[in-house]
């Protein structure tokens, strides 16, 4: 039966049979060597002693390869590692070949790394298991020991076989340690960054930790402020109490200011020495700290040994981690500072604006109200949050159509009407996002009764609905009082003007009527001019009175079913003198038939039975204004047409002319007060600029509409829609 044998045992047997008898001792020693797992350091030392004893070398080093590809000495606790491919061991490990270097001093490949000068020869044997490099066995030979170089190949194989075990275990523990250290560092740095201390204190803590982890001389932090060109603030061990401003050399400034090229470690040893008092030659390396996409600071790493070429991956990771944590912190700080500033800015506006602002939710509850809103609504409560909007005031009356005001006797009823109307508007605002235009309301609060203007604008919209709305309130009592004063003044003045105008009108008519004897032609002509001017004055006063009445809301609409064709027929008859003098042809038609204006017969129900619901006198005024306008702005021998169409809800009255027309700009201001339009006929026409304003107000007060379409030089169409009278008069 064959005994199973390991590779090591076979090798041992082979050597036993070939080597000299004194080598027997080596096997004895190696067999006695026990790997002590909880004290690898001691084990390594023991093994090294055996290796030196039997190889005749002056030194032996065991190096293991960590998971990042760095070679570490097993015998020393703190050391900087070699990269794969660097140094004798690095090259051996990379090439998986044993290197024999005889005259190491003269070998240019290893000069930089400062292989020990005392050594004149060196062997680096990679330890390979399952084709993985575990590490390197280094044997060094001083001048004295050079005679033992090179050692026996077979001996090296025996050593390698024994070293394998120890390296495997050391690597394993080392990798665990790196992981553990990384985790600890991560935990520590996170903890520091999240602690409730100042940034300076945080950085100082981190500095201490890092120095402790990786045993370097010092690190510091340079803060770069783009506003202060060529200078940085530093937080370092020396000046840890406060930030110190440092002037940068050109090269450093360049590094700070450049956006590319500083993504990684940069060796700045050269430029640092120019502003450092430290005469000792240090390696200085920077690593950037990004806050967002901007470099906010640098970590400055100072050490006599460690530099950009020999930082271990663990160290690199540590700096990267530190940079990323500080960077995130800075970005967050900056962001929250921005938010706080912005919030403060809006708060200042919200609190100091001279209008009341209320944020309300969909159920019309107040989310927030500014001090001015509280002042206007007369509440002493500091917060109105959660209160119902309508619990703060009662609407007594809104500045709505005169119709409502005229029947205001039942105040309670109308108060509800206004509140319901506003509620509906707010609901629709939340649904559609349609702003509520400013409207005046006479309200009652704990502060008494006064006028406010309420409007509402879209605020935050989500999923097509407004989450909250901004209600804007303004006390307009003063304005309202002024308006009222103005209107009362206007109506008083108008009344005072009317009396002398009546006297002038009366006497003139008597003179012209030959009551005081006959007049010659010249006298008649001049007095007619006076009469005309007087009439213009009368009309102006009437219009002004109408406007003030409309604006005060002081007029009644006695609505009844009015036969509109009849009414227009009469208006045309009244204006007949003017029509005839300009030789204008006027046609009145309905959807059914033409209405004969020449026959001086009243229209009967059979002819047209189109009825509108309107105040008869006001309707006359409306039609007079429109037809009179058409006459004014139509040239001689022109045409005017009035066409009636009845629909389900509205009667449409079109007044068409082929006159001078209105330019688009003028159309926009047509229905505004005192808007007189400049065209060749307007000067001659001599209106007050109030006619169409009054007309529109009267029409809308009836619940009707008026629109205009016009082409300059072609003509104008006014379209009036008046409500249909459903109940006809009982005739």
């Amino acid at each position, binding site marked *: 039966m064959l005994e199973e044998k390991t590779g090591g045992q076979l090798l041992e047997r082979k050597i036993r049979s070939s080597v000299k008898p004194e080598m027997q001792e080596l096997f004895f020693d190696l067999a006695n060597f026990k790997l002590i797992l909880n004290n690898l350091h001691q084990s390594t030392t023991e093994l090294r002693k055996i290796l030196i004893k039997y190889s005749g070398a002056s030194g032996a080093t065991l190096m293991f390869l960590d998971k990042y590809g760095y070679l570490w000495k097993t015998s020393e606790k703190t050391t900087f590692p070699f990269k794969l491919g660097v140094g004798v061991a690095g090259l051996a490990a990379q090439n998986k070949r044993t290197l024999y270097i005889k005259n190491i001093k003269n070998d240019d490949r290893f000069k930089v790394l400062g292989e020990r000068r005392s050594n004149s020869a060196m062997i680096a044997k990679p330890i390979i298991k399952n084709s993985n490099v575990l590490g390197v066995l280094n044997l060094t030979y001083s001048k004295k020991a050079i005679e033992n170089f090179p050692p026996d190949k077979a001996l090296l194989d025996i050593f390698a076989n024994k070293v394998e075990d120890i390296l495997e275990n050391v690597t394993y523990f080392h990798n665990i340690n790196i992981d553990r250290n990384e985790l600890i560092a991560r935990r520590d740095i996170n903890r520091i960054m999240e602690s409730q201390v100042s940034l300076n204190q945080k950085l100082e803590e981190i500095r201490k930790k890092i120095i402790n982890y990786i045993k370097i001389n010092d690190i510091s932090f340079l803060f770069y402020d783009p506003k202060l060109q060529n200078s940085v603030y530093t937080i370092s061990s020396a000046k840890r109490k406060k930030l110190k401003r440092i002037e940068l050399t050109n090269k450093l400034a360049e590094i700070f200011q450049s956006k590319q090229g500083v993504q990684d470690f940069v060796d700045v040893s050269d430029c640092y020495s120019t502003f450092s008092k430290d005469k000792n030659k240090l390696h200085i390396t920077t690593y950037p700290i990004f806050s967002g996409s901007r470099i906010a600071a640098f970590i400055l790493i100072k050490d006599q040994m460690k530099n950009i070429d020999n930082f271990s991956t663990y160290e690199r990771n540590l700096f990267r981690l530190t940079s990323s944590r500080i960077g995130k912190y800075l970005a967050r700080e900056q962001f929250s500072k921005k938010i706080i500033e912005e919030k403060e800015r809006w708060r200042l506006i919200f609190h100091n604006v001279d209008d009341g602002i209320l944020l309300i939710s969909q159920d019309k509850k107040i989310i927030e109200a500014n001090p001015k809103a509280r002042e206007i609504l007369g509440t002493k409560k500091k917060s109105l949050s959660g209160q119902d909007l309508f619990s703060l005031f009662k609407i007594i009356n809104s500045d709505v159509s005169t119709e409502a005001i005229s029947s205001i006797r039942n105040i309670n009823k109308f108060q509800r009407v206004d509140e319901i109307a506003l509620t509906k508007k707010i609901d629709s605002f939340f649904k559609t996002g349609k702003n509520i235009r400013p409207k005046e309301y006479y309200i009652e609060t704990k502060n008494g009764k006064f006028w406010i203007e309420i409007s509402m604008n879209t605020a935050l919209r989500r999923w097509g609905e407004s989450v909250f709305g901004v209600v804007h309130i303004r006390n307009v009592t003063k304005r309202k009082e002024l308006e009222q004063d103005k209107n009362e003044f206007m*109506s008083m003045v*108008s*009344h005072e003007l*009317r*009396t*002398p*105008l*009546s*006297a002038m*009108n*009366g*006497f003139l*008519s*008597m003179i012209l*009527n030959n*009551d005081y004897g006959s007049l010659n032609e010249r006298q008649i002509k001049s007095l007619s001019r006076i009469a005309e001017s007087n009439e213009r004055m*009368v009309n102006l*006063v*009437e219009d002004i*009175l*109408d406007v003030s*009445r409309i604006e*005060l809301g*002081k*007029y*009644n609409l006695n609505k009844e079913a009015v036969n509109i064709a009849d009414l227009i027929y009469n208006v045309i008859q009244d204006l007949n003198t003017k029509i005839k003098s300009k030789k204008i042809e006027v046609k009145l038609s309905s959807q059914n038939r033409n209405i004969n204006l020449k026959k001086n017969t009243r229209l009967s129900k059979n002819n047209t039975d189109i009825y509108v619901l309107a105040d008869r006198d006001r309707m006359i005024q409306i039609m007079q204004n429109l037809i009179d306008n058409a006459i004014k702005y139509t040239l001689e021998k022109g045409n005017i047409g009035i066409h009636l169409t009845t629909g389900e809800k509205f009667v449409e009255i079109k007044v068409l002319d082929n006159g001078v027309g209105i330019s688009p700009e003028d159309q926009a201001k047509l229905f505004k007060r005192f808007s007189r339009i400049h065209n060749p006929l307007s000067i001659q026409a001599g209106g007050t600029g109030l006619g169409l304003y009054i007309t529109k107000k009267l029409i809308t007060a009836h619940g009707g509409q008026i629109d205009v379409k016009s082409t300059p030089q072609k003509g104008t169409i006014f379209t009036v829609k008046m409500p249909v009278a459903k109940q006809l008069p009982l005739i």
Partner: protein
Amino acid sequence: MRKCVLVVEDDHILQEMYCEKFEMNDFQVTKASTGKEGLDRLKKKIPDIILLDVLMPDMNGLEMLKEMKKMREYREIPVILLTNLGESKIDMDQELSFALGVQNYLVKTKHTPDDVLNKVKQILKLKV
């Protein structure tokens, strides 16, 4: 027989104007400047028709009307209200004045003395 018209008007020029017009047209005219004066004139002679201003000091036209309606002998006198008021007050008073038996309602600026004369003639069923 000459018809008698009482003109109650506080503005002297307007008063003069209406008086002149009616005198010229063969009316017997009495005049008053306030409502109280108007009532005094009624005691002396009952006119065929009254031209009554609304806004007057002392006692206004509507108040005078109310007083008149209290007395049977004055109740039937036709009244034409003359006014220069252009406010809603008069619109509301319109109802009241018709309730008080006013025959017509004329705005002074809009109606010449001839119009007033014609209205009076119409009411008194005289030839226009």
